[in-house]
């Protein structure tokens, strides 16, 4: 049963990602991408990594794709279609893709994957304890570094968003004297 679901999900991911690249309508590409990311979350649920699956749904499907769709809604009108590319560009891109695929398959065949019988169950307590453990096997330092990075990004975004107002406010004062 799990095998069937695995193959269905794989087929969905492969076909939707192809459609997402090949579609000439921007918003449709975004929607196909939404499908791909949701199906990947399905994989995580299939192997029992519920936490990762839910994070995938919140961050990628619910967050990033919504942002992409939002920005597309702000930019284009509904009739907009990407122009059909020249055949030369199609040929070059196709050749590159095939070369990349061949290289990828070669690499995969060369490396040895070890088969894992029962994947580690990751309930929330394990995730939390590992993430916030300062001792051995814990990831407290990377966690804090990432949170500082996020804070910096947030402050930066606010500063950039506010800059126009502060310039507008200060410019008449500078001109006044």
């Amino acid at each position: 049963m799990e095998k069937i679901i695995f193959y269905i999900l794989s087929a969905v991911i492969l076909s939707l990602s192809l459609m997402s690249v090949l579609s000439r309508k921007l918003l449709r590409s975004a929607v196909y991408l939404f499908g791909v990311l949701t199906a990947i979350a399905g994989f995580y649920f299939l192997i029992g990594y519920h936490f990762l699956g839910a994070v995938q749904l919140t961050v990628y499907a619910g967050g990033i794709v919504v942002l992409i769709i939002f920005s597309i809604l702000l930019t284009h009108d509904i009739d907009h279609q990407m122009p059909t590319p020249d055949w030369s560009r199609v040929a070059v891109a196709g050749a590159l893709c095939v070369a990349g695929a061949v290289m990828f398959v070669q690499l995969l065949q060369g490396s040895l994957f070890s088969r894992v019988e029962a994947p580690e169950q990751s309930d929330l307590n394990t995730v939390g304890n590992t993430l916030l453990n300062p001792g051995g096997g814990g990831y407290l330092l990377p966690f804090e570094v990432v949170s500082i990075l996020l804070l910096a990004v947030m402050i930066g975004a606010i500063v950039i968003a506010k800059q126009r107002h502060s310039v507008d406010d200060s410019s008449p004062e500078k001109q006044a004297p």
Partner: protein
Amino acid sequence: MYDFTTLVQSIGNFLHGQFSPGVATALEWTLVILVYLALYAILGLVLVYVERRVCAFFQLRLGPNRVGWAGTAQTVADALKLLLKEPVTVNKADKLLYNLAPFIITLAALTVISLVPFAKGLQAFDINIGLLFIVAVSSLGVVGILLAGWSSNNKYALIGAMRSGAQIVSYELSVGLSLLTMVLLTGTLQLSTIIETQANGWWIFKGHVPAIIAFFLYLTASIAEINRGPFDLPEAESELTAGFHTEYSGLKFAFFFLAEFVNMFTVAAIATTVFLGGWMPFHLGDWAGFNAVMDFVPPILWFFLKVSAVIFLMMWFKWTFPRLRIDQLLKLEWKYLMPLNLMNLVFTAILVYLGWHG
């Protein structure tokens, strides 16, 4: 006394005894899907009826309280009207996305109710990260709304969708933070365990002030997240005709409609589970006799009683308060609810650290 675990297990055992494991699992899934689809339809039907009645009482609308016995014919009329309407398709719409949008919204709404614990053992998907999963999946519905607004190729629909996007993305934060406050108190995200922690008192009673604040913050934010009045800006009739579903008619419109009502049920069910003790009966201190009488009422009845009380509260809000403006709406979230939520979260963390909680 009323435990559904054995009943559910015996159905499972019967299926596994009769068929091979693969077929039995497939049958179980089909059974669960059918039950939830039926629940989805029935919830929609009942909530439409209740909404019409409550609205009629509040606003002195005479019709819905008079047709048929206690206004029951109103639901029949509404359903018939939806079924018989012509499904109009827009010529210059993006057909694929136009037809996909109601599907995405329905899927998100249907997935979330699978986590709701109706009684002990009566829950389809008791996952370790229950609350996180609910927040994750309910954030997918906005994609459907945005697509519906865009693909209709209609200015009103697009404005409605943009408003809805801004509103849902903002209010999701408050919903998540207020639930996080409660997670601090319960110490778990699993819905069945959250209910078990309330065996000696509901969180709204034993969670001190933070739980009460979190309850009202959750209720406000989630009403806004599911686009219900007084936060129904995305479909404000007086300015946007019908917002993001202006171009939808007949059954496709009914899908949006149903999803809104089922979302309302889900919000009420989560509020019940996290704050009001889920299917736990109401106990009053040491009154053994009173408690025994309360225990006699089946838990599933308790659950639906509490849920209907919360739903009534939400309808009360909708039909009493005037609709907000979009700037007021965003100001409410970012300047009042969010800071209040963060302060409440820190306050609760201190409380839990000192060990003063339930």
